């Protein structure tokens, strides 16, 4: 359903559906830009609020995921840590739950989790625009989609991404050595 076809209360249904579908994306952006769990929940709340407020502006020209990325990254770039007192009042909106009984080998899963944690550590050290670009790259967006999210040309995306990938590779080596 398109947002402009959605009458009244259906906006809520549409938003809920999009949220369920793209919660992972929101979670990844929040983890990449907010260092602690409390900060992450705070940023998630800000992103969801901006998504909710921006919903009427969705024109359907871009893919929903591209639009969610734009709002999430714009919010993350503008986000600043708030005082502990204000954060403490907030209820976690997205929580990660481990699924029991998965057939996947436990050691493989732990290895992967370690790699992902190192990736996040490396992303935290990147300049904000590079961090955003790396996030889009890791989530396998095309150059066209990255250009749409960032508002720059595809050739510029290519130049920046090459540089960011090199920095990321160097940082991953450093993180490995430190570990």
């Amino acid at each position, binding site marked *: 359903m398109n947002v402009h076809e959605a009458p009244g209360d259906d906006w809520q249904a549409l938003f809920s559906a999009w949220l369920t579908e793209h919660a992972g994306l929101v979670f990844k952006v929040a983890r990449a830009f907010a260092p602690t769990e409390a900060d992450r929940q705070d940023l998630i709340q800000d992103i969801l609020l901006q998504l909710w407020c921006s919903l009427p502006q969705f024109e359907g020209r871009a893919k929903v995921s591209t639009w969610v990325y734009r*709002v999430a990254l714009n919010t993350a770039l503008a986000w600043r840590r708030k005082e502990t007192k204000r954060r403490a009042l907030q209820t976690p909106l997205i929580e990660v739950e481990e699924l029991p009984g998965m057939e996947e080998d436990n050691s493989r899963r732990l290895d992967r989790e370690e790699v992902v944690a190192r990736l996040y550590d490396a992303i935290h050290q990147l300049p904000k625009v590079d961090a955003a670009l790396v996030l889009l790259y890791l*989530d396998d967006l095309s150059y066209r989609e990255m250009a749409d999210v960032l*508002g720059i040309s595809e050739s510029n995306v290519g*130049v920046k991404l090459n540089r960011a990938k090199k920095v990321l590779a160097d940082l991953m080596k450093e993180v490995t050595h430190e570990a």
Partner: protein
Amino acid sequence: MKLDELEKAWQAQLTGRRLTLNADIVLRELDRSKSHFEATIFWRDLREAGGAILVAAFVLWFGIKDHIWPLFVMAALSGGVGVFMVVDRLLQRRRRPTYSDPLLACVEESLAQINHQIWLLKNVFWWYLLPFGVGCALFWGQCSWTLLKAGLWRLKDLEMPVVGVLLYWGIYHLNQLAVKKGLEPRRQELETLLQSLQSNSG
């Protein structure tokens, strides 16, 4: 580790996990946050612009009641400050950054907004303090002249303008401190973001 292996690990990070999200709670929480945000903005605008307009009305009423002409000037200047604030808020509301825009456009809009806020606070003397100050000075001048003519003027009557000048100095410096501590760092941050988005060399 190669980049495509990292990419695979990244994309599988939520495998074996479930993101729990109660849409009803989220929507309720978002509605609450949105209302809170809108109420904060409304009361801030009302406090600032409404305050100036209220002062204008109050001073005008006194001016009419007691036939004191400097109070008319003070009312007109205070009203002008209030109108300026309302017009400025309305114009800025239209220029508020849109989060669904591409990052470059959103950073440009945010930068324009922060530059405007810095301009407002740096020039607070001209558009806020001076109009009120002129009104107060005229009123004090006329009162002093009347007292002087009646031979009732005392040195103690200088207390009011001295307190006023100190108050103005405090307000002016608080505004400059807000620029220095809050807005300038944010502007630098946005300029860095803009440069890194615009530069072709990456």
